[in-house]
């Protein structure tokens, strides 16, 4: 279980995460949603050790993991994917997966010279595993392609694929869905559920696709302006007025404003109360 207590992360004077506290229960698929700039990715990055928190605490199964570096967290079973895909461009797709598992014999220089047989064995096993994952992600035809040449969506798949190479306790997925074909996203969703059920992975998922969230996640945590705005089941959240106002909106409205009006309103709302809520306010006013 991951527990975040009063976490604050500021950039200069700006509090991207502002005193957020939340819990991700073991075995759950927790959704994390919120308007753009709510601080979701920043929260992820703090938990995953990319940024040091300004203040606050993160614990995992009761153990304080605040400020541990990413590679230490990896060894504790905490994995993450990136919102903007971070592949290894000059490695082949398969190598991108094979490099993941920790503690490979061949990762020590000494062994690379004197333990060749054992390395060969391990590599064969890894190769098999990587190919399975690639099959699963429907990109096995690209296994020898350099990862740098993949399409945007394919890179996203590769991100997910890497988490499947090891036994993870908890996986943080930062918008795996963005730019991924919906049919494929459904498959990914199924895979997440399966990993959750069969292998006991805990997931924390940032996503803007509400169908996906609705299908997969329970509970769902909503963030806005660095704070936790609401928490509950997906259905429950989608009814929540504040969430609708700040995040979901009311669907296609086909509103056509005159530009002058819009400008005035934009200025007013900016002066009056900066923040994302205004957007919905503007919408309502028209």
């Amino acid at each position, binding site marked *: 279980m991951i527990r975040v207590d009063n976490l604050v992360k500021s*950039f200069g004077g700006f509090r991207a995460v502002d005193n957020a506290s939340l819990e991700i229960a073991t075995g759950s698929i927790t959704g994390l*949603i*919120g*308007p*753009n*700039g*709510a*601080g*979701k*990715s*920043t929260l992820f990055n703090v938990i995953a050790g990319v940024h040091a928190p300004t203040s606050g605490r993160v614990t995992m199964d009761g153990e304080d993991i605040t400020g541990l570096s990413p590679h230490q967290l990896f060894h504790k079973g905490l994995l993450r994917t990136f*919102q*903007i895909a971070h592949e290894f461009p000059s490695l082949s797709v398969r190598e991108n997966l094979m490099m993941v598992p920790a503690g490979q014999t061949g990762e020590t220089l000494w062994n690379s010279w004197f333990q060749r047989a054992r390395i060969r064995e391990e590599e064969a096993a890894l190769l098999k595993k990587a190919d399975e994952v690639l099959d699963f992600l429907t*990109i096995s035809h*690209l296994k020898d392609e350099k990862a740098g*040449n*993949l*399409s*945007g*969506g*394919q890179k996203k*798949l590769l991100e997910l694929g890497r988490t499947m190479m090891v036994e993870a306790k908890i996986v943080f997925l930062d*918008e795996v869905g*963005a*730019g*991924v*074909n*919906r*049919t*494929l*996203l*459904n498959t990914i969703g199924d895979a997440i559920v399966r990993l959750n059920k069969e292998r006991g992975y805990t997931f924390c998922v940032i996503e*803007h*696709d*509400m*169908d996906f969230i609705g299908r997969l996640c329970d509970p769902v945590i909503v963030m806005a302006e660095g704070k936790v705005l609401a928490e509950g089941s997906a259905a429950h959240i989608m009814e929540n007025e504040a969430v609708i106002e*700040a*995040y*979901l*909106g*009311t669907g*296609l*409205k*086909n*509103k*056509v*404003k005159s*530009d002058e009006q*819009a*400008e005035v*309103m*934009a200025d007013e*709302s*900016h002066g009056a109360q*900066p923040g*994302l809520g205004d*957007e*919905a306010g*503007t*919408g309502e006013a028209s």
Partner: protein
Amino acid sequence: MSFLNAADMTGGYGKADILHGCTLSVEKGEIAVIVGPNGAGKSTAMKAVFGMLPLRGGSVTFDGEDITALTPQQRVRKGMGFVPQVNNVFPTMTVEENLEMGAFIRTDDFSHTIAQVYDLFPILKEKRRQNAGELSGGQRQQVAVGRALMTRPSLLMLDEPTAGVSPIVMDELFDRIIEVARAGISILMVEQNARQALEIADKGYVLVQGANRYTDTGEALLADPEVRRTFLGG
């Protein structure tokens, strides 16, 4: 002849072709949406239309003129605007400077357009002095679209403009796209939020492996169960 007509495009990055006779066309004031699986060549097709990919075959005409041989910046001056899928902001320039750069070819006063963009994406106004590289993913996407709008193009090409933006902003964005189209600007966009996109599309293309699989009106594609199942996620 259509306003934009990219006929029979064939080409790729290296030796192997990615596009195999792909054809796209948009009329004036029309919204055309391209959907398809990952790696189908959608972005590649967009780049080809914009002259960022050498074509081995096919031609691109724009406003009745053959532009196959023009460089991207010449196409910009002809009135084409493009938001790429990735790397679509100037990371160490402020939001406002990003927008100004969008208006680079304009010699008139563009402060009004900036105001319009801020109106569309209020968060950008708030962050206008911040470097675009320090924005959240969705905010960045908004900057990218805003930058393209600044050119006041007669054809706007968007590669997954809604990837990573929140539902409310997405709705807003689609609204604005409709609005832009109504003003007579043609829109060609790639979308993975395909159902919403096709709802507003006059024309839809389904691209598979660098070739057109289905071409129809947005509604018709949405209604086709085969298309829905295989490409739109049911």
